C-alpha cells in the first residue's frame, strides 16, 4: 500500500522536513524547492488518479504549491506539514471533482490526430501485460472500474483514494477533510459497496 513520499503519514514532521520548512519560511528558495520535491510526487499521483487528466493534474500541482508558497509563513507547526499540505490539495481536487459532477464533461476518450483514444491509456501503467487475452480482460476491467468510480460522490472518491492508493489512516483523512474518523469510515464503506455493486463478476 502506498505511503506518502515523506514517509510521515499523519505523524509530526521529521526533523529534516521541520528545518526545511523553517528555512523556507525565512526565504530560502533552495529549501522551498527541496520541500516541494519531498511531497510533490505523491501530490501529483493523487491528482492524476483522481482527475484522470494530465492537464488538470498540472493545474492542481501548480495551484497547490503556489498556495503553499504564499501561505507558508502562516504555517505554525500545530499540525503536521503533510496534513496542512493535503488539506490544500484535497480542497482543490474536491472543487475540480464537484465542478465535473455538475458539467459531466469528462469523457472517457480523448480526441487525437489518430482518432479517439482511451483517456486511461495516456498514462504509463504500473504493470503491463504482454498476454493479449489478459490485456483485453484488463481493459474491460479498467472501464468497469472507471464507471464504478464515477458513481461515487466527490467525498467518497477522495476518502477511497486517500485510503487505498495513498495509504493514509482514516483518522488523518477525517482530519484533513474537516470531518470525523467515523464519517470517513462510513464514506469508505459506501464507496466499497458501490464499487462492489458495479464490478460484480469482475472481482
Amino acid at each position, binding site marked *: 500500500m502506498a505511503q506518502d513520499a515523506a514517509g510521515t503519514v499523519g505523524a509530526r514532521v521529521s526533523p529534516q522536513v521541520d528545518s526545511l520548512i523553517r528555512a523556507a519560511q525565512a*526565504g530560502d*528558495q533552495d529549501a522551498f524547492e527541496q520541500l516541494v520535491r519531498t511531497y*510533490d510526487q505523491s501530490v501529483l499521483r493523487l491528482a492524476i488518479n483522481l482527475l484522470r487528466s494530465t492537464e488538470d493534474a498540472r493545474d492542481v500541482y*501548480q495551484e497547490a504549491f503556489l498556495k503553499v*508558497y504564499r501561505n507558508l509563513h502562516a504555517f505554525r507547526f500545530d499540525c503536521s506539514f503533510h496534513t496542512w499540505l493535503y488539506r490544500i490539495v484535497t480542497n482543490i481536487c474536491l472543487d475540480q471533482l464537484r465542478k465535473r459532477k455538475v458539467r459531466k464533461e469528462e469523457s472517457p476518450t480523448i480526441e487525437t490526430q489518430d482518432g479517439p483514444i482511451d483517456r*486511461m491509456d495516456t498514462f504509463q501503467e504500473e504493470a503491463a501485460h504482454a498476454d493479449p487475452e489478459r490485456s483485453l480482460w484488463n481493459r474491460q476491467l479498467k472501464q468497469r472500474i472507471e464507471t464504478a468510480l464515477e458513481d461515487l460522490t466527490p467525498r467518497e472518491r477522495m476518502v477511497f483514494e486517500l*485510503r487505498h492508493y495513498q495509504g493514509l489512516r482514516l483518522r488523518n483523512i477525517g482530519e484533513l477533510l474537516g470531518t470525523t474518523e467515523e464519517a470517513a469510515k462510513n464514506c*469508505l464503506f459506501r464507496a466499497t459497496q458501490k464499487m462492489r455493486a458495479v*464490478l460484480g463478476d469482475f472481482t
Partner: protein
Amino acid sequence: MNCDSILRLIPLYYYGELTPDEEERVEEHTHGCPACTREMAQQRALAAALDKRQVVAAPMLLEDCRSDLMAAIQGGAPHVDPSAKRAWRLFLDAMAASLSGAPLSGMLSGIARLRQPLGALALLAIGFFAARLINTAAPSATGALLSSVTSPTDDVYSTVRSVQPDNSGGVAISLDETRRKVVKGRMDNANIQRLLLAAAHEDNPAVRVESVDLLRSQSGSTEVRDALLNVLSADSNAGVRLKALEGLKPLAGDSEVRKTLRRVLLADDNVAVRMLVIDLLVANRDDNMVGMMQGLVQQENNNSVRLKLEKALRDMNASPGRF
C-alpha cells in the same frame, strides 16, 4: 455478532482500521461462516483489481510541473534570492574589511552603519518608482484609503551592475537595489487600480489571474475595459483570458468589446475561451455576427464549439450553413 454487522466491518478489516478486539471478532465469525468468508475474498479481489488501476505520473510530467512552479515563483512572486543575499553579504564584508585600516574606519566600520547610506539610496529609488505608480499629489482623503507600508527591516536585494576603478586609486561601484513594499487600499481607489493594471502584465500568471480577477469588479472604467480587452487578445495564459472575459460580460453590448470578441472567436486556440465568447456575443445579438458564425461553423474543429455555434444560429432563426 451477526453477518450484517460483520459485512460492515469487512472493508475496515481489510484496510487495518479496526481495533484488535473488533479484528478478533471478525476473524472468529468468518472462520465459521462461508458467506462472510466469500465476502472477505471479494473484498481482497476488489482491492487487487483496483491496484491495477493505479497510474504513475511520467517522470517528465513531474519535471515539467516542477519547472513551471519554479518559473511562476521566480517570475513575479516575491522571494528571497539566496545567491543575491550571499553576494550582498560578501560585498558588505569586503567593504568593511577594506575600510577597517583606513582613517575613516571608526566612522564606517560595522555592517549596520554601512547599510544606512545604501538603505537611504534604496528609499530614494523607491520614491522614484512610487512616484511613477502612485500619485503622491493625491489629496489627504486618498491617503486614508491608500497606505503604503515599508518596513525598515525589509530585505534589500542588490546586484552589482559595474565596478569602475578611477585614476586616483578609488573605485566607483554601481548597485541595483530592489526593496519589497506593501501597498494597501480599496478597490475603488484609482492608484490601486493603476497598480493592478500594471500587475496584469506581470510575468507570473498567478499574479495576472488575481489582478484581472480584482479588476473585473471595476470594468465600468474605460481604462480597465481596455486593459481587459488587451489581456483577452494577448495574454498567453487561457485562465487569465477567461478571467478577462468574465469581467467583460457586463460590457458585451459595447461595440469595441464586440469587435475584440469576434476577433478572439476566430483566433483563440482555447475551447473554453471560444465557448464563453459565443455566450457573450449571443447575449447581445447583432446581424453582423450571423455571417461570421455561419463561416465559422464550417471551419470549427471542436465538436462542442461547433454545436454551440449551430445552436446559437438556430436561436437567431439563421441557418447553420451559408448559401
